[in-house]
């Protein structure tokens, strides 16, 4: 089993442990793998350890920025959430 496979399995498992549906976790894991491929870097190299990165992803899902209300009103903005690496 390759290091990439181990990383992605650990990542998907961590996502489900954090409350994502298994199907959603698998979809995000597949996207994450593709993003590493497009960058030419390994998963560990690009994202850091799998479990902290899973927490960062789930945090991002919960911290989506809301668009401004139609017809005025202020936008609800959010500073970036946690990251797993500097």
């Amino acid at each position: 089993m390759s290091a990439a496979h181990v990383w992605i399995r650990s990542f998907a498992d961590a996502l489900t442990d954090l409350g994502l549906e298994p199907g959603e976790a698998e979809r995000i894991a597949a996207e994450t793998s593709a993003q590493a491929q497009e960058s030419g870097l390994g998963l560990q190299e690009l994202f850091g350890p799998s479990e902290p990165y899973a927490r960062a992803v789930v945090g991002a899902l919960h911290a989506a920025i809301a668009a401004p209300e139609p017809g005025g009103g202020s936008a609800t903005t959010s500073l970036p959430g946690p990251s797993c690496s500097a």
Partner: protein
Amino acid sequence: MAVEQVEPVAGDCGSDPHRQMGAVSDTDQPPISPSEPRGTGPCQMWVPCCDRLRAAVWDETAQRRLLAMRGWGSKVMLSARKPDWYSVRLTTVTPSGASSLSGRWLHGFLDLCLLGLLAARRDYGYGLSQRLSDAGFGEVAGGTLYPALLRLERGGLVDVSWQSSASGPRRKYFELTAAGRAVRAQQIQDWWQFRAGIDAAVAQPVLESEGGAQ
């Protein structure tokens, strides 16, 4: 832009003739010609290779040479190929502390920066990473960038689409939505207000202390 010619280094490449740098003809020797790096961004160079194995040897050689030449760390990746040449992208590893400050600053404004870049044109994750680097922020960690893009996506500020790439895997492109443009406009106002506050704070007159510096 200055281009530096890096002469090949003959190393101990084992008994495999493909890995013996001395077996390479003069016409086949690089000069490796890295583009002049800017800040902590990546640089690109083409190296000749008859096979991928030798390219890998060249990767290591190039990495050592650039380390010694510039005092950088570098990560070497093979990317595109054209006949007999590989493109080797050298992504600098930020020298200790060199961009940690800009990284901390960016952390609070990454969403705004991404909205700004995507307002100019749609892009995919790695492309955005390069544009952030080109803007002077250094290398933005994937663990920071991709969750931010996911946050924008889930907030409806960007649309995503997958597109095949001629040179690699499919790419996930991000494109600003109308809601994203509205948030961008709002965040720009917020930024100017915040910046005005900082400017006002740091422009306060400095009183000379009687004791001077300790």
